[in-house]
């Protein structure tokens, strides 16, 4: 996540689940952890048993709230206002952890005099380029530093983050930083924090308006509740105590989602809670290996280990490295990581003489994420599509658009355990029902291939705390079921055979690719160990490497993903380590293997004070051992092992040597946690409250209603609700939000097809308050129809006080809660919530807003067939939007 990346240097969970037991206060926001990560939640309960305060800030009262010591309600889409209220409280009541803030954050840095805040420009930061809907970041920089060519980054590869990912800042972002911070520190700073343009004073000014009264107006949270949360956090932070934050996609799926996480980062930096036991920000991810799928990315803008994909202007390896490789920090060795990757992929063919086969790599030229690809399918440009363990027909916002896109392909391959909606849309979908699609008109050729499950194959998952864990194979897959490993290996083998004699330059990469893997058994399953070993890499002697520090830029080492280097040290699969937790320290370093270098808490240098002593005995974790002249402790120190706390960089120092002994955030150019982000984000150096794309509420802070640089695709197929005050806005008067249930999993493929889970949670429903039920004549157990400008869906009604009403700026506001798991296939079926949403996305990471929108609700079931289209058209007409044929 760039929210964490821009604040701390690496984009991921700063801590691990078991560490929550050490917290004195835990704030869970944007997450229903007890229901969606129930087993991880045991560590919250451990903390509570030890007397910790557990605070759940959420629009609904859930089982997480029931287990918390405080439930605090909040209108969906307003968390930045709430967190801004906490920042305001800390600053106005002088409750920050002064030593930590002064030593470990950029509070003292002085910012360019051209910088203007949102209060000066009515919701805009300085540098807004109206015609591009983007910011020029030049005025956000440290004084006397300038950043070249930052505008327009949003369409390129710079925004290399994503909702669920942990990653360091991309080298390009790093490069930008290092241009700024040649000497490892800002050129001007004021250690007294009094300079009017120092970060600390700007922060104070920015959050001055986020008073408890303002929070109450925006969030609908009673002001005394905000004060109670802020006070609990302040009381449980400092030398002796630490507080932790947990979040999930309730924070990320917004048009300003990255800034939600930034806001929490500011709170945690002010209170001194990063890098310390019981502190941190824990991102809770929803898929078994979503972290792994970013580390070894099935993402367009990255190569393994967060190396950026080359762009068109990178005509050769030299240019690529020059333009992408920073001058300081870990990324100064990107040449070694990159050339080792090329050796892993192209073997002997990658040499200095062949420019390491760099020219075999495809180039990116803009945003090639999933939404532009879908638009490409609708236009007929994208002709073939692989859907592998995903279900966009149910799981993607404005799913109708995705189904219609798939109906416009030449060919489609779907690999899954079940015949999911994304395989069946051509004869079973809302478009078939309304007559917008007919099977005999759909040209797409479809291959459905059954997949093997995790018990039928071996391999590693990377969990939410960056931990690789190996699952062994229990049984052979049945019938045609095969792993993805099998499918892609054999597909690649087949294609290579067919093109063996090709003289086309484009086929060179396939011909020269290393694609020989040992296979096992009758079905010729590639050996996953061999693949993990390639990911780990080897040296000149052919032996598995133990650390990425040994990677070389001269072609003598090969490594498929540098951050995973070490997982196969000494030819052992460390992901498969299973020393029982009961036989190890609470950190359990010998269970699985975590990147980087098996560290469990990141930035753990900050668990010691500037002199290297633990802040307190109670919060002892990593410290400077003056006798042995090394850092030691419970975890692998996240610092140069022998860099003393009093180390001062000599003139002209580079890389790690340019950072002093009191800079725990070693991937940041200045080694500090960033309260103000001069770079790395495209929508502002400070988080500020904007309303969601679709909201019935006016932004009371500024004239700007929503994030000015959010990405939109306005079309007849993707219309947006009118903003409040505009004609037709009242047509969609309620706030809507979506969430998961314990018994189901995302788009339902792995749960609606499972008998036990379908029985436990059999039917789509919506949650409404008694007041809304009365207003719209909804009956508990009856039916409701939820309407947006995209479509209308039906759901059983659950009338419950657990979804409260809000009084926003004096007006009562109702919220409709919608679990989003359903679709038309499987044992338990129902209308799909994602059909309701528009596609409107965060500009940093291209993630859609599905956690706060607007809608209407009516009693009864929705109409069928063409009558459904007519109903939606009636709403569109009243809202002043184009109608659909």
């Amino acid at each position, binding site marked *: 996540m760039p929210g964490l990346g821009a604040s701390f240097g690496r984009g991921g969970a700063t801590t691990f*689940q078991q560490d929550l037991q050490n917290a004195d206060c835990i704030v869970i926001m944007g997450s229903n952890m007890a229901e969606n990560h129930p087993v991880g939640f045991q560590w919250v309960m451990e903390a509570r048993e030890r007397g910790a305060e557990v605070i759940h800030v959420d629009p609904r009262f859930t089982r997480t709230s029931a287990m918390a010591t405080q439930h605090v309600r909040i209108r969906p889409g307003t968390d930045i206002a709430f967190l801004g209220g906490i920042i305001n409280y800390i600053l106005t009541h002088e409750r920050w952890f002064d030593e930590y803030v002064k030593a470990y954050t950029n509070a003292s840095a002085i910012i360019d005099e051209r910088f203007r805040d949102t209060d000066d420009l009515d919701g805009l930061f300085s540098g807004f380029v109206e015609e591009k809907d983007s910011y020029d970041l030049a005025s956000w920089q440290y004084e006397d530093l300038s950043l070249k060519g930052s505008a327009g980054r949003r369409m390129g590869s710079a925004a290399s983050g994503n909702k669920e990912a942990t990653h360091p800042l991309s080298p390009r972002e790093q490069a930008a930083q290092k241009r700024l911070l040649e000497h490892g520190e800002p050129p001007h700073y004021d250690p007294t924090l009094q300079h009017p343009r120092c970060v600390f004073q700007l922060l104070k000014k920015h959050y001055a308006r986020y008073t408890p009264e303002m929070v109450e107006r925006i969030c609908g949270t009673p002001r005394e509740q905000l004060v109670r949360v802020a006070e609990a956090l302040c009381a449980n932070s400092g030398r002796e105590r630490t507080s932790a934050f947990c979040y999930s996609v309730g924070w990320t799926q917004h048009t300003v989602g990255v800034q939600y996480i930034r806001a929490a980062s500011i709170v945690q930096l002010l209170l001194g809670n990063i890098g310390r036991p019981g502190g941190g920000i824990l991102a809770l991810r929803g898929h*078994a290996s979503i972290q792994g799928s970013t580390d070894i990315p099935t993402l367009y803008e990255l190569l393994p280990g967060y190396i950026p994909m080359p762009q068109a202007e990178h005509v050769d390896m030299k240019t690529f490295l020059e333009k992408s490789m920073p001058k300081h920090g870990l990324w100064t060795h990107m040449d070694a990581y990159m050339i080792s990757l090329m050796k892993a992929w192209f073997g002997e063919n990658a040499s200095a003489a062949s420019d390491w086969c760099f020219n075999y790599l495809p180039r990116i030229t803009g945003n090639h994420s999933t939404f532009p690809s879908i638009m490409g399918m609708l236009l007929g440009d994208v002709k073939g599509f*692989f859907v592998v363990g995903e279900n966009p027909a149910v799981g993607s916002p404005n799913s109708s658009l995705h189904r219609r896109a798939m109906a416009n392909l030449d060919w489609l391959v779907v690999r899954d355990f*079940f015949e999911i909606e994304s395989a069946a849309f051509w004869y079973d979908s809302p478009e078939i029902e309304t007559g917008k699609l007919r099977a005999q*008109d759909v040209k797409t050729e479809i291959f459905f291939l059954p997949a093997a499950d995790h*018990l039928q194959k071996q391999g590693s998952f990377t969990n939410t705390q960056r931990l690789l864990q190996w699952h*062994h194979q229990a049984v052979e897959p049945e*019938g045609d079921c095969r792993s993805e490993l099998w499918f892609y290996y054999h*597909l690649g083998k087949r294609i290579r055979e067919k093109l063996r004699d090709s003289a086309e330059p484009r086929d060179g990469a396939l011909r020269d690719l290393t694609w020989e893997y040992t296979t096992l058994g009758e079905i010729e399953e590639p050996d996953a160990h061999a693949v993990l070993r390639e990911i780990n890499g080897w040296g000149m002697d052919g032996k598995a490497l133990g650390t990425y520090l040994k990677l070389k830029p001269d072609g003598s080492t090969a490594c498929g993903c540098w951050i995973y280097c070490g997982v196969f040290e000494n030819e052992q699969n460390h992901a498969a380590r299973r020393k029982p937790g009961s036989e190890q320290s609470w950190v359990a370093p010998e269970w699985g293997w975590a990147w980087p270098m098996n560290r469990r808490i990141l930035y753990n240098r900050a668990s010691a004070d500037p002199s290297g002593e633990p802040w307190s005995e109670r919060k002892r974790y990593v410290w400077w051992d003056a006798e042995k002249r090394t850092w030691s402790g419970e975890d692998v120190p996240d610092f140069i092992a022998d860099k003393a706390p009093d180390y001062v960089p000599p003139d002209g120092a580079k890389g790690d040597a340019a950072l002093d002994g009191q800079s725990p955030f070693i991937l940041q150019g200045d080694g500090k946690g960033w309260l103000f982000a001069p770079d790395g984000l495209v929508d502002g150096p400070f988080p500020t409250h904007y309303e969601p794309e679709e909201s019935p509420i006016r932004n009371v802070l500024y004239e700007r209603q929503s994030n000015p640089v959010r990405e939109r695709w306005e079309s007849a197929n993707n219309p947006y609700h009118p903003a409040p005050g505009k004609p037709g806005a009242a047509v969609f008067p309620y706030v809507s939000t979506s969430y998961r249930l314990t018994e189901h999993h995302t788009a339902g493929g*792995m749960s609606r097809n499972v008998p036990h889970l379908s029985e436990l949670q059999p039917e789509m429903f919506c949650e409404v308050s008694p007041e809304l039920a009365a207003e719209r004549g909804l009956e508990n157990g009856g039916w409701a129809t939820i309407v947006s400008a995209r479509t209308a869906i039906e759901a059983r009604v659950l009338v419950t006080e657990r979804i409260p009403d809000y009084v926003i700026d004096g007006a009562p506001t109702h919220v409709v809660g919608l679990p989003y798991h359903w679709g038309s296939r499987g044992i338990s079926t129902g209308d799909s919530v994602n059909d309701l949403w528009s596609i409107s996305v965060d500009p940093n990471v291209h993630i859609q807003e599905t956690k706060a929108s607007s809608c209407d609700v009516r009693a009864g079931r929705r109409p069928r067939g063409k009558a459904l289209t007519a109903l939606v058209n009636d709403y569109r007409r009243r809202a002043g939007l184009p109608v659909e044929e």
Partner: protein
Amino acid sequence: MSWPLLRQFGRDRLALGEAAQSARTAAIEPRTATADRVVRSICPYCAVGCGQKAYVKDGKVVHVEGDPDSPISRGRLCPKGSATRTLSQSPLREYKVKYRRPYGTAWEELDLDTAVDMIADRVIATRAQTWEAADDKGQPLNRTMGIASLGGATLDNEENYLMKKLYTALGVVQVENQARI
């Protein structure tokens, strides 16, 4: 004395032991005791990463339960994790390739080998048809914008690795997964 209620008047007043037993319950054994082997696994649902033990008998998974050795999960599983065996053995599970020809109105059968071969042909053809060697400035692009891929967050690292490696060699850049969605 076969009626449990009567037996409850004896030593087992709360009916938590022998009073609740029958000849049948006395004769059955837990599946964990009769399994041939135990395989260590990891839950495939969310990213908590709970440890699992899969019990196998006669080449079939008969039971999946939490692994008490895991320092993260300490033996626990949630409802989804506990349903892992039924996920694997659901009556809706597909075991055969299905093929739908353009404008077809029904699925057809296709053997796996033919399917992989046909997909390979489609990839080669689409790639040839949509290949972009260079941009208008003559800078190399080496790619196809005619093929896209979505998926990865539930897959193994090794699988994602081979996917990215093959796609990159094919010139496919539109590779995405759930991490974005």
